[in-house]
């Protein structure tokens, strides 16, 4: 479905007669009023709009991407994709300074990028309500690390909200604006994948209008030089004490009574739902506004139960604070440190804490079956396929990688990416490898691979560092005109803004030249033309200075990509050499394998192939390494006029 559809469509309940013999015995509830069915991301977007927010900015990042995508569909406010998270937060701060309500969203690692701005805007404070939604990828479904962004709230002494479902995502995002304005500081809404991407019913509240009051010049407040900052840091600590007092009264910090007082749970976020699901009779202190902690209420709660267990994803943050306050509790000593705290992980931990046998129902009745892994792959005809096919053919390379679809080049069959750290890191890491190498790496060429959007996010500065410091690095700048991994969003290289409207388009060749790469060391080429790619790459790695090879085919998942005539394999002509398999295209399948003994006595493994013509979009990459000309256009039947790559 297209995102955003749910926001515009109220799900109206239209009860129909239900037959008597319900096969699963589900009972029907009473008819509920009209409500929305939204993901946590959609709910936050709606709340931001309903709060009268004027400016919202983000850089795409799973699992938070859809928040800005949804917001961009509302005509009521200004939205933008920013070049990175730090800029997005600064844009939001500027809007707040002039009195507008402002918002930005990011994934967990995005807040690391934005932290420089965050750690000073907590000192200046804000005017118009400023809310930051940060989404932690608990369980690491699509991130390079698992981190607990709640620490940023504590580090920056800011109020923190932790919704447990879509309704709370809406309610807390609304409340976060109010709290931000009451305490004149940013407020953080911390989500996780299990909030962002879970849909549930949401009843929205009344919309409010919010007019910006106007910028008030006040250098003591907005110009953070040491003399101005010193008194404000003291104010920040005063504010934290006021926040602490208010957390005691927060409607989101609630005690849920329960008769089984052997264990009292302190929990927040999606873990609350898992706790309630698994232990419906236990008393639970649910933290919704979880920083600063309502310590005195928690102390009273602890006094009324035999044992306290803190269930939080992912770090023992609340647990540490409780212990520091002298409140005895269990937590990560019995619960897993990594990943989600789902019911099947809670049951055995709680049983151990109670000194009981692990309940049988916690064990799955069938053991999971061993099935091949299905890692994410590059798409059929992805322009990155040709890049990694070529890199895999070259020897003596060290390939410094970056974050995007092209990180998949580290996988099979290419195995042609050696590092992946953080946005833009391919540049600095490559330079460091070049400067730090000893005899062991003297003969290896250092390559950096980076995508268009990642380059503009944080890679440009790294390239500047390479040119300024005379690094010997060959940069592959894969311009596929999209932020591919997160769903094809626009960036300054696409010539379109967040609404798809025409916008200024960066010229990568000129940009690289301006950053100090010699004009003759910059090549723009077609990644579907393997011989050119191979030759250019081989030539440039021999030149001991920075070069940039820009590839310019669009992502196959965006409208710019135009499929052409598909291919098929003539089975009789296929010799089983498997060269085409090395391209890594998912449309190529093996029909049979054979072991052939050469006259020399050497055994060769053959793999005969077919092309799934219905999936093929005709990029022609597999045609080029096929020596027997077995790959031809499916319709009409004629050989393809491609030059064969001599590689």
């Amino acid at each position, binding site marked *: *479905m297209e995102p955003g559809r749910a926001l515009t469509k109220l*799900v*109206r*309940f*239209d*009860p*129909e007669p*239900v*037959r008597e013999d*319900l*096969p*699963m*015995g*589900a*009972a*029907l*509830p009473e008819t509920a009023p009209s409500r929305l*069915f939204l993901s946590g991301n959609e709910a936050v977007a709606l709340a931001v709009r309903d709060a009268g927010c004027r400016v919202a900015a983000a850089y795409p990042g*799973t*699992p938070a991407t859809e928040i800005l995508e949804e917001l961009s569909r509302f005509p009521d406010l200004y939205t933008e994709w920013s070049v990175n998270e730090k800029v997005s937060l600064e844009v939001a701060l500027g809007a707040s300074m002039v009195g507008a309500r402002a918002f930005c969203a990011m994934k967990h690692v995005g807040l690391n990028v934005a932290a420089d701005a965050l750690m000073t805007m907590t000192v200046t404070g804000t005017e118009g309500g400023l809310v930051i939604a940060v989404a932690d990828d608990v369980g690491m*479904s*699509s991130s390079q690390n698992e981190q607990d962004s709640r620490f940023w709230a504590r580090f920056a002494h800011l109020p923190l909200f932790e919704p447990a*479902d879509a309704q709370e995502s809406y309610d807390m995002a609304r409340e976060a604006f109010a709290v931000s304005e009451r305490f004149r500081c940013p407020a953080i809404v911390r989500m996780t*994948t299990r909030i962002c*991407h*879970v*849909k*549930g*019913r949401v009843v929205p509240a009344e919309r409010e209008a919010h007019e910006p009051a106007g910028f008030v010049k006040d250098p003591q407040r907005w110009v953070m030089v040491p003399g101005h900052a010193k008194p404000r840091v003291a104010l920040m600590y005063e504010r934290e004490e006021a926040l602490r007092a208010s957390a005691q009264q927060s409607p989101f910090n609630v005690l849920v009574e329960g008769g089984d007082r052997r264990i009292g749970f302190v929990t927040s976020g*999606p873990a609350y*739902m*898992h706790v*309630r699901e698994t232990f419906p009779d236990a008393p639970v202190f649910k933290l919704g506004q979880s920083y600063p902690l309502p310590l005195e209420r928690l102390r009273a709660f602890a006094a009324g139960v035999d044992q306290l267990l803190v269930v939080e994803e992912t770090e023992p943050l609340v647990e540490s604070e409780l212990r520091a306050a002298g409140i005895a509790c269990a937590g990560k000593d019995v619960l897993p440190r990594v990943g989600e705290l*789902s*019911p*099947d992980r809670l049951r055995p931990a709680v049983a151990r804490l109670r000194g009981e046998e692990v309940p049988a129902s916690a*064990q*799955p*009745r*069938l*053991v999971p*079956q061993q*099935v*091949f*892994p*299905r*890692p*994410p792959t*590059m*798409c059929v005809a992805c322009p990155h396929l040709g890049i990694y096919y070529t890199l895999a053919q070259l020897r003596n390379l060290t390939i410094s990688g970056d974050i995007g679809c092209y990180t998949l080049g580290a996988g*099979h*069959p290419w195995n042609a990416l050696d590092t992946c750290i953080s946005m833009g890191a391919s540049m600095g890491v490559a330079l460091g490898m070049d400067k730090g190498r000893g005899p062991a790496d003297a003969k290896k060429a250092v390559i950096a691979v980076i995508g268009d959007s990642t380059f503009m996010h944080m890679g440009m500065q790294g390239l500047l560092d390479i040119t300024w410091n005379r690094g010997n690095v060959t940069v592959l700048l894969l311009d596929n005109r999209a932020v591919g*991994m997160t*769903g094809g969003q626009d960036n300054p290289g696409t010539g379109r803004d967040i609404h798809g409207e025409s916008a200024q388009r960066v010229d990568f060749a000129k940009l690289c030249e301006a950053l100090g790469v010699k004009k003759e060391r910059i090549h723009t080429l077609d990644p579907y033309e393997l011989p050119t790619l191979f030759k250019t790459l081989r030539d440039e790695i021999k030149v001991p200075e920075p070069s940039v090879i820009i590839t310019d085919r669009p992502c196959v998942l965006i409208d710019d990509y135009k499929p052409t005539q598909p291919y098929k394999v003539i089975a009789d002509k296929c010799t089983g050499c498997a060269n085409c398999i090395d391209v*890594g295209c998912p449309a*190529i*399948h*093996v029909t049979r*394998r054979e072991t052939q003994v050469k006259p020399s006595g050497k055994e060769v493994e053959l793999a005969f192939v077919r092309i799934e013509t*219905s999936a093929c979009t005709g990029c022609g990459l597999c045609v080029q390494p096929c020596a027997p000309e077995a790959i031809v256009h499916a319709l009409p039947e004629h050989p393809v006029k491609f030059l064969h790559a001599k590689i």
Partner: protein
Amino acid sequence: MTITNIAVCGIGGQGVMTATEILAEAALSLGFDVKKTEVAGMSQRGGVVTSHLRFGPQVLSPQIMPGEADLLVGFEAAEALRWAHMLKPGGVALVNQGRFVPPVVTIGLYDYPEDPIAEMRRLGLAVFDFDASALAMQLGNIRLGNTVMLGAMSDRLPFPADVLRKAVLDRFGTRKPELLELNREAFELGRAAVAQPAPAQAIA
């Protein structure tokens, strides 16, 4: 408090999430509390997609735990086997026979199971299998496979098949009215495909 748990699995691009969304809309139309969750981080790149749908009077955790699914819907045969342990005893699996062989199998690193559906039966599961793509092609449009899958589920739900059919036609029919009749037929083909008893062989 009775909750219905439906686990839907497949690979990126097959329409797993859309199908679950439509199921959710059907349950919502009856006034159930509904939660739907999925893990599909990089599914757009051919990875594994699972979508969990839970509905009942009140749903807390959105996740179905292993051994607790009433219904397992497999859009791909090996994926159904991968998630077979989600089913509760007595649960039912509806499985598309279609296979999507990933590059790790093509390049020879792993083997695709010889007969994933037979393996599920050996585990003692009640499996209804059918070729959703072939049924869709009977109507001349491979993209109707999703509706075939939904039709197959429709008699296994705690509400009449009509409710799901209405949700399907509301979704696909409003977008392309000319496809309304085809979707109606695809839905019925899926329904008929699993009408016969499951040829299950429980092991003692």
